[in-house]
């Protein structure tokens, strides 16, 4: 099956001579040289795929080009060079009409500062993408009511954005982005403007929604912990370049560059790694009474494993088949180092 989103050598360079400079550089772009020529490199040779139902988190500090990359893929800005395929169609070659069509059918986006229309109520904001599509007011209002319930804002349909808290506003933003039932869901630092407690709550809510909806997601954040919590895979960006793209476990265990290492150093591994990443092959001596899932985070099952003092079976949660075994000594190593 072909990937839902596929990027191939995507560049985004700001500045008047961007195109000329890029064609002269033959693909190896040096940010410093470009800056001297009056150009700023936003995205530098990004290539990756996102599969259907997968959540890719793009993580980077401010100015790393992560939001720019997202905007190239949603074509809110035009990429300077490269191919961006959505379900096999190159979005860079689409005309305005096709683009509008694509966004109406397949895409939803959530913004950092919520970007609600200030003149519309909660329900009107959520119904907006449906209305621009030409769906009747009555039908779009019913659909919007459904979304209001989904994000837990029932009873506040007629509030204006200014009357809601930040968390509630972002719930509206989420509901709006989901109203047209898109396949692809873009989230641009959706929880960064929220308080830490609310942020945690919204992340849980987001995981719950994703459990139900199973969308293809690109999620941008500057918060490494958030990326670890949510991602199937993480892309870490710096100065427009993707430094490493891998599963959270692999990134923590094997940081590809010194830059990535700075993020992973202080991460408590037991909180990130799944049993899968430290399990051994199947072992006939394994205990019959206990088993853990390969997707369990180590911290959550550590007590159970250590108490048993035996080798424990590891199962695949999908079909309950046995895929490996785990030795308590491995868990101790992760927990206490050495």
């Amino acid at each position, binding site marked *: 099956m072909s990937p839902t989103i596929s990027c191939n050598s995507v560049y985004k360079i700001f500045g008047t001579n961007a195109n000329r400079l890029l064609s002269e550089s033959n693909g190896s772009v040096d940010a410093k040289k470009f800056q001297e020529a009056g150009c700023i490199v936003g995205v530098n040779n990004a290539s990756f795929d996102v599969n259907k139902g997968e959540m890719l988190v793009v993580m980077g500090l401010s100015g790393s080009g992560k939001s720019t990359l997202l*905007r190239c893929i*949603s074509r*809110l800005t035009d990429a300077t060079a490269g191919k961006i395929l959505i379900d096999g169609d190159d979005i860079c070659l689409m005309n*305005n009409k096709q683009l*509008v*069509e694509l*966004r*109406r059918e397949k*895409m*939803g*986006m959530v*913004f*950092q*500062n*919520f*970007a*609600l*229309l*200030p*003149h*519309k*109520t909660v*329900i*009107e904001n959520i119904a*907006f*993408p449906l*209305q*621009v*599509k030409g769906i009747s*007011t009555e039908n779009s*209002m019913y659909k919007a009511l459904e979304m209001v319930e989904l994000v837990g804002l029932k009873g506040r*349909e*007629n509030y*204006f954005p200014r009357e809601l808290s930040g968390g509630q506003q972002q719930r509206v*933003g989420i509901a*709006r*982005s989901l109203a*047209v039932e898109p396949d692809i869901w*873009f989230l641009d630092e959706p929880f960064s403007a929220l308080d830490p407690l609310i942020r945690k709550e919204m992340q849980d809510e987001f995981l719950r929604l994703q459990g139900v909806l199973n969308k293809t997601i690109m999620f941008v954040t500057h918060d490494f912990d958030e990326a670890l919590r949510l991602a199937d895979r993480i892309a870490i960006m710096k100065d427009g370049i993707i430094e490493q793209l891998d599963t959270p476990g692999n990134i923590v265990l094997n940081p590809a560059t010194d830059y990535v290492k700075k993020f992973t150093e202080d991460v408590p591994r037991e909180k990130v790694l799944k049993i899968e990443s430290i399990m051994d092959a199947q072992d006939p001596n394994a205990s019959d009474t206990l088993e853990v899932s390969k997707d369990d985070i180590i911290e959550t099952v550590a007590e159970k494993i250590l108490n048993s003092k035996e080798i424990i079976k590891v199962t695949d949660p999908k079909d309950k088949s046995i895929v490996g075994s785990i030795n308590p000594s491995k868990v101790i190593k992760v927990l206490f180092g050495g």
Partner: protein
Amino acid sequence: MDRNYIEIVKNSKPVQFGLLIFIFLTLYFLIPQSENNYLWRLPSLLKGIPLAINNVIFNALYEWFPLKVWDPVFEMYEEKAAFREFTKAVSQGLLFLITVVRELLLGGDKIIDVFVNDAWLKENDWLSWPALPWTATTVGAFLLGYQLNGIRLGLLGGIGALYISVFGNYVPSIQTLSFVLITTPICFVLGLSFGIWGYLDKKVETALQPVLNVMQTMPQFAYLVPIIALFGLGDHAGSIATIIIATPPMIRNTILGLKRISPEVVEAGLMSGCTKPQLLFQVLIPAARRDILNGVNTVIMQCLAMVVIASFVGAKGLGLNLKIALNSLKIGKAAEAGLCIVIIAVILDRFTKAWADKQKNYFENLSFIQRNKFLIIFAFSIVIFSIVAFISDGYFDKINYLYVIPIEKGLTIAHFIDAGVDWVWETFFYSLNSFNKFLLTQVLGPMKQAYLGMPVIATFTLAMGAAFIVGNIRTALIVGGMLLFIALSEYWDRALITMYMGSFAVIMASLNGIFLGSIFGRTERGGRILLSFCDFFETFPSFVYLIPVIFLFNITDTSVLIAAIVYATVPATRYTVWGLKSVPLSLHEAGTMSGVSAFQRWTNIEIPIAFPTVMLGVNQTVVFSLQMVILGALIGTEDLGQIIFGALSRTKDGAGVALTLGIFVSLIAICVDVIVRNWAEDRKKALGLA
């Protein structure tokens, strides 16, 4: 001397300004006053400009692009200039629209006349649209206010309309209203279109900026003569003058509002799948709604501020009545007409604001009658009151008071006001008179002579030097270029008088505003009250300010200056309060913990931080003062305004003179603006507020 020390002195603004003033004074006293000395006065090389403008207008009207037009009376083709036909069409269109609204409300047969045979209409004198009885209008005003924002706004509308009707100002008020109702939508559409265009195309915005600057700083009078030349006299001419004055703020507000929309909101619109028109009409314009509606509000206020000035080119209504009353020194009548303008302004102001905040409920599920109950009640009241008024026709012998109460039969308190004025006059005559005399002989007279005795080279040094110190060489050249344009005309002395009056008013108004703002703006509550006072005073059309001062100080510079000072104090106060509000709380706390006294807090913390904002207020003060100073020409001063005003009665080169001098006044304002704005920006950057 230490090189560092020299650097510091060179870069110190106070030292630079000190040096500039020293050079200025040296030039001032060294240059001899002689007509042949170009350092004293420049030769009037640009004398021909007014005439050239006139020739352009004349050619446009009578010679360019001749079209063959069929003349039905002489049954032959006639050669007529295309431009002339165009202005004619515009005039007739506007006049028609104004007449429609007017006749719908006041009755008449002019509109019917357009559609039927003239002779037939004369034979059937029953064929006339009936007037809307003032009773129905009052009910309508109440209902509209009630629906918009509850009983209080309803009462404001109802009582306002009742007052206007009972005091006999119904007819002129409706005439003024019809004028506003036609002019406002035109300004709205024009302003919105240009604003959107400017927002979408950076080049258009860059081109619009200087045009808007000139349009907004040009005295309203300057437009009148060219308008008469192009469009003739009448309500439509007044309407066109108003459109020229009121559209620029609408354009500015639209651009400002659209620019303030967060880019994320635009992106959200795009990601929702908006097409370009959908994005414009469903996202951009509604998201900028508040600024756009502020623009509409400004347009309405400008329309009302213009009614008196529009009456000079033939607009009927309250403005005309006020002008006539002022000309014949009937203060009471003038005050009553002025009050009606203020009432209409306040009602329209509150109504549009309430309309802007109105919201819609999707889940009410109301029946047709419930949804339109106010409209239905209004329709009923029109029918009932019309029938009552029609039936009681026999009861009144000449005037049917249930339709319209004519002005000479209405209630009036004019004689009370007149008596009050007389009393003030008699009681305070000596003190007022001696104050007036003192001001004229001891302050204003010498100040005027000082300005007139200024060699042209000294003026240029001062203005360009100041521009250079706060900006750069480019700023200095811009200011110099604009002044040069005036200096090369034959009106430099007049311009100096305008500058003298303007600068006196600006200094006094700024001091007043900073004083008031600093006293009351220090507390949250005081600031709020002061700002609502500013709102209230700003709804007064500029003309209203002239009424009381004329009666206290006669027709002298004092009257005009006091009106200008009061008028211009409003923006200075407003911006001072805003500036003080912008001082962060943490700085106040830091000050308190450092143990500052109230005065130290003001001089060391509040004023420096608020300075850039206050300077923007001073900028506004300049425009306001100049407007009033020029308006003062109406009651007789001897600056540029007087010649602009005089041009109204000059046929040959009136239009050219008025436009040229209008641009001069505008250039003076823009010069000050350039210097002050640079200064404010500079301070802002220095304080890290940019």
